[in-house]
């Protein structure tokens, strides 16, 4: 009885504290954005010339103009197309090699140093070399993105598959659990978390590299547009396209990957709580 009467105010105050915390977070966040936009506006209207730092409104106008002219859709489609094609290849490649390395000792020793070397090279190097060899059209941009991102996916799968609990697998065998049940209840749940990480990182890394390849060659895409605007010394254009690039990464992460991974990892919540 006493505990019950005692717990109600505790819960209420806890909720209140939670609400206060939320309020504080949002105040801080809004303050940060207001400050940023304010300083930007002040700088562009009083301190530097508009062609050096255009005001937020000018950038916004430019973005609307790009969107309305159809340039956005066309270039965005070109970049996305490259991303999807290269993603299919580097993910399959990375998953296969990583799993092989996790399962077989020999392959692990065989490839270990090469994978770490491949990761430590900047993606830029692959891009420059492959573009120079194959030209900037056709297969080269995709090959460059694949070469740069596949090692990261390999690493994820290499570490992830190794983490599958062999104890549980042994137990499954010992208790003669059906093969399908072992896959469904032991292997798949163990694979999901790092597969998600691999997909998320693969997409965000791949997206950057696609744009980077377009900066050096090609005739369409967000990176190509940035290069064009850069060549015209147009800060307005570069920032506008950069914001599109940025918004797309954020949307992809917040609207697709975050909810998906939350859903797929629901089963873990009971464990951690």
């Amino acid at each position, binding site marked *: 009885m006493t505990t019950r009467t005692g717990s109600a105010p505790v819960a209420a105050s806890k909720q209140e504290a939670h609400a206060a*915390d939320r309020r504080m977070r949002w105040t801080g966040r809004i303050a940060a954005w207001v400050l940023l936009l304010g300083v930007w506006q002040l700088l562009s209207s009083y301190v530097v010339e508009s062609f050096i*730092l255009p005001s937020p409104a000018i950038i916004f106008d430019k973005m609307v103009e790009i969107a309305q002219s159809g340039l956005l859709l066309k270039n965005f489609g070109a970049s996305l197309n490259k991303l999807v094609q290269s993603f299919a290849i580097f993910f399959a490649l990375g998953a296969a090699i990583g799993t092989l390395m996790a399962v077989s000792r020999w392959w692990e020793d*065989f490839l270990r140093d090469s994978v770490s070397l491949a990761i430590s090279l900047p993606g830029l190097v692959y891009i420059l*070399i492959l573009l*120079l060899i194959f030209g900037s059209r056709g297969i080269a941009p995709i090959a460059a993105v694949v070469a740069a991102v596949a090692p990261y996916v390999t690493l994820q799968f290499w570490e992830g598959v190794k983490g599958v609990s062999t104890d549980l697998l042994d137990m499954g065998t010992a208790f003669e659990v059906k093969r399908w049940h072992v896959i469904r209840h032991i292997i798949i749940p163990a694979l999901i978390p790092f597969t998600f990480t691999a997909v998320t990182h693969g997409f965000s890394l791949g997206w*950057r590299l696609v*744009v980077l390849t377009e900066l050096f060659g090609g005739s369409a895409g967000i990176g190509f547009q940035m290069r064009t605007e850069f060549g015209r010394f147009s*800060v307005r254009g570069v920032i506008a396209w950069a914001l599109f690039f940025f918004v797309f*990464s954020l949307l992809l992460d917040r609207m697709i990957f975050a909810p998906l991974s939350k859903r797929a990892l629901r089963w873990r919540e009971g464990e951690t709580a």
Partner: protein
Amino acid sequence: MSAQVKLAPLSPDNGAGPRPEAAKPLWRRVRSGYLFPIILLALWVIIVPNLPTEKIPTPGKVLTFMWDEIRVNTVAPKSVYYSFAISLARLAVGVVISMTIGMIVGVASGLSRRFDAFARDYVVASLVLPGLIVALVAALWFGFTFLTPVVTVVFATFAYTASNIAEGVRDVPRDLIFMADSFGVNRSAALRHVTLPSLVPFLFVSLRYTISLGWKALTIAEIFGADQGAGWMLRFWYDANRIQGLIGYTFFFAIVTVLVDRVLFEYLARRLLAWRGDVAGAFQR
């Protein structure tokens, strides 16, 4: 070097135990580990000269190029030593500024939830902001100056230090602070003997990320906004349409990276983490 893959600060179980491979005789590990590069090299030697194209250089051509560069017998306007020296100088300045800003922001957000609420979006935005965008804008603003690469390095990396240090500050052992309080240890002594040592591993991880990410950001910045430096040399050979130059410089980059990694980090790890016997293994990842 999973710089982009993992942001988690050091966890004690990560590679702390002796790796089973270490038990193997050295020659076996060496042989299997280097087999793959050797096979690649063999393929390169055998296949490339038989290709119908002249574009892809043979290993001999690349080695000749590198040897010429090392002897400063080059058609490029700047020698390889000068290029890497200037790039490393830019990197060093950028890293120092980035770590300083990162530490100030990190400590402030670790200590004050109010400040954390304010700074969080900046930190997150900077974490996801690719170096190439910073590089382009910096190149437009500052031109071919010392500032372009340095500003790029700072903006592309400070958030890693900030978020790591913030975690570290939240992780400082409360018990020890309380104990220091109740035994009347003065503030600076507590800071020196409790807070700082427990931050060192986080600083160390941050330094690693900062250098490895900063190096990549710096290369991009030098390609678009510099007229000297190692990154600019990549652009020079790209524009000159000489693949042996690109590949040769890639090897130079790899050598410098390994040197920095080995010399700087092993020295720092030995010095700064000597008090923590178990931690050495964690840095050999």
